[in-house]
């Protein structure tokens, strides 16, 4: 038996140097991290801060916005024929019937036209006119008047009566309706065990004399006490005031939604 002595730690005696170096490096890193944490950096964004353009939680009173902003949500998710505010992308042209004999010139022209058409209009999509209100059914009308927030509950409405321009012509009336409903919605009527709920939609009509009629839950939140509180808010209201004399219709139809979150 030969005793083979293999030196697997050839630098055993020199380990102290690198070890000290490593400790020093780690300490430096720690100090850097510590200072980086304590000293506020001028770079980066503060989330939810007021200095930024849009905070993480922005609570702006809608009525203070001078003109309608594009609605965030449409009312009926399933079947909505509204074009909305965003312009729809151009339709693709129907495919040309296959040619038996390809003509080189024609092919080249078609290719050019297709590529031109497929290009999305660069700026038009984002461009929303200041005073643009989507015509017809669909997006909530008259943005500045369309919604209210009280604490952490929200509500909103859209007018569907008349020729669709009631909200833009009589914004002050829509605003009155919104205010009156929000004033009469008593949040304590909702089951205290409920923290958050789906949106409830209430439908009603305002007669010429201003009375709410034909009141019903259009789409339930699934929570009876919330549905009831929303209904009662409207039942408490005797009148919204007569419809504007300049308005020709017999009534206006209103869809009012309530969001609840404790």
């Amino acid at each position, binding site marked *: 038996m030969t005793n083979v002595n293999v030196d697997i730690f050839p630098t055993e005696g020199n380990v102290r140097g690198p070890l000290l170096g490593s400790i020093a490096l780690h300490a430096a890193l720690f100090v850097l991290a510590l200072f980086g944490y304590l000293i506020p950096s001028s770079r980066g964004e503060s989330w939810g801060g007021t200095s930024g353009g849009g905070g993480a939680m922005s609570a702006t*009173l809608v*009525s*203070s916005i*001078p*003109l309608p902003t594009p609605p965030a949500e449409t009312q009926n998710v399933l079947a909505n024929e509204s074009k909305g505010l965003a312009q729809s992308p151009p339709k693709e042209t129907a495919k040309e019937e296959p040619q038996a004999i390809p003509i080189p010139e024609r092919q080249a022209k078609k290719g050019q036209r297709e590529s031109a058409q497929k290009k999305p209009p660069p700026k038009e999509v984002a461009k929303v006119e200041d*005073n643009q209100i989507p015509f017809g059914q669909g997006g909530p009308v008259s943005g*500045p008047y369309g919604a*209210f927030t*009280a*604490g952490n509950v929200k509500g909103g409405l859209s007018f569907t009566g008349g020729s669709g321009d009631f909200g*833009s*012509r*009589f*914004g*002050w009336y829509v*605003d*009155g*309706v919104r*205010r*009156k409903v*929000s*004033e*009469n*919605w*008593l*949040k*304590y009527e909702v089951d205290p065990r409920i923290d958050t709920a789906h949106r409830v939609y209430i439908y009603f009509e305002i007669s010429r004399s*201003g009375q709410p009629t034909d009141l019903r839950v259009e789409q339930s939140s699934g929570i009876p006490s919330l549905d009831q509180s929303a209904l009662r808010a409207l039942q*408490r*209201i*005797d*009148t*919204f*005031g*007569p419809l*504007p004399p300049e308005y020709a219709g017999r009534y206006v139809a209103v869809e009012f939604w309530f969001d609840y979150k404790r």
Partner: protein
Amino acid sequence: MLKKIAFVFALLAFFTRCLPAQDWIRTGTGLGVEKIRLAVPDFKVVTADPTTQKLTENFNVTLWNDLQVAGIFDMVSKSFYPLSQPGAPQEVKLGEWGSPPPNANMLAFGNVSVQGGSLNVQGWLYDTKNPKSPQVLGKQYREEANDANARIIAHRFADEIIFRLGGGVQGIAETRIYFVSNRSGSKEIWQMDYDGANQKQLTHLGTIALSPHVSPDGTRVAFSGVTREGWQLQMYSLELGRLVNFPRFGGDNYSPAWSSDGQNLAFSSSRSGNTEIYTVGSAGGNPRRLTDSKGPDVSPTWNPKTNAQIAWVSGRTGLPQIYTMASDGTNAARVTDQGYAVSPSWSPNGQFLAFAWVRHYGPGEPGSSDIYVMDVASKQWVQLTHDGGHNDFPSWSPDGRHIVFQSKRGGKTQIWSMLADGSELRQLTAGGENTQPNWSFK
């Protein structure tokens, strides 16, 4: 130190739990949290003579005051207004009014002129955020040129604005308040405009007249007065300007209250020995007894929305408490649970009771009498007056947004008004002692 901080936080947490009560009381009374920013530049003087100048000043002050008191507007301070003063639609630059500094939602403007002894006022209300069709209201008034008419026109224009923007609720600028005053030497019935102007003595009995209550149509004032037969219900006709006949009942009779349909009066009477609540027809016929208890039953008030309920004060369990019952005397239920509660007044929408309450009453309990409002259905209440002497006899305005009451906060008992959330306190009377206000139905 830590304990102190923890205590402060606990206190804060407690108060934030309490806050929602105030919030919904405010909303239920039609006083939304969010108010309409309304700019009202002085109306332009068209004809340049001293009379027009004076009438216009009177008009401007009254209009501003009416709109400010209404409780639904955030009046934009005049220092924010653009320099140009519009007097007609073509002079309005909506952009200037709708953007900061005024940043108004609505703009009321117009002009005043005097021609041939008649006062002409043109007034408009514009929605500043709707440049396409800004006009909400356009009105023209013509009356004989005097100060009283300048006030009346301002009241009417203010009421039109409030009616349009306040959700169809009629304004109160032309309403009246009836009250008891001793400034002529004895306690007589007086009347004044809702803002304290035009105070006028109605009765000249030389005895004691108390608890006036005006009829819903505004033609008669019922009150209780001392006669040879003791305390009796008496009726003063505002149309004839004198007392008219009303049947006398046995015993002492106090505190008449009209139902809102004008068909019935409720009052308290001791004709059967004990003081109980009775109702009679508007002409005094067909008396009916509603209560029957050992303690005194006084101060009835109808639910004006339905006339199917009456609230009153009963001492059947000791200290006076507020009770409600159906107008036929059934379903009596106690509303307040402690202290000393008197003088109920039912809000026009039937939702609230206002009353005076000493919540902690008795020896060693230095409680003061304050005005409270309670939601009848949920029994939740909110205190409206604080640290202001003895407050009593609240009465609701017909729009349900204001309450008038008597208060001894200045040393002498005077009549004050406030919004139904306790804000915008205003003293309405000054001479003598003035008590027991009653706000007219319209």
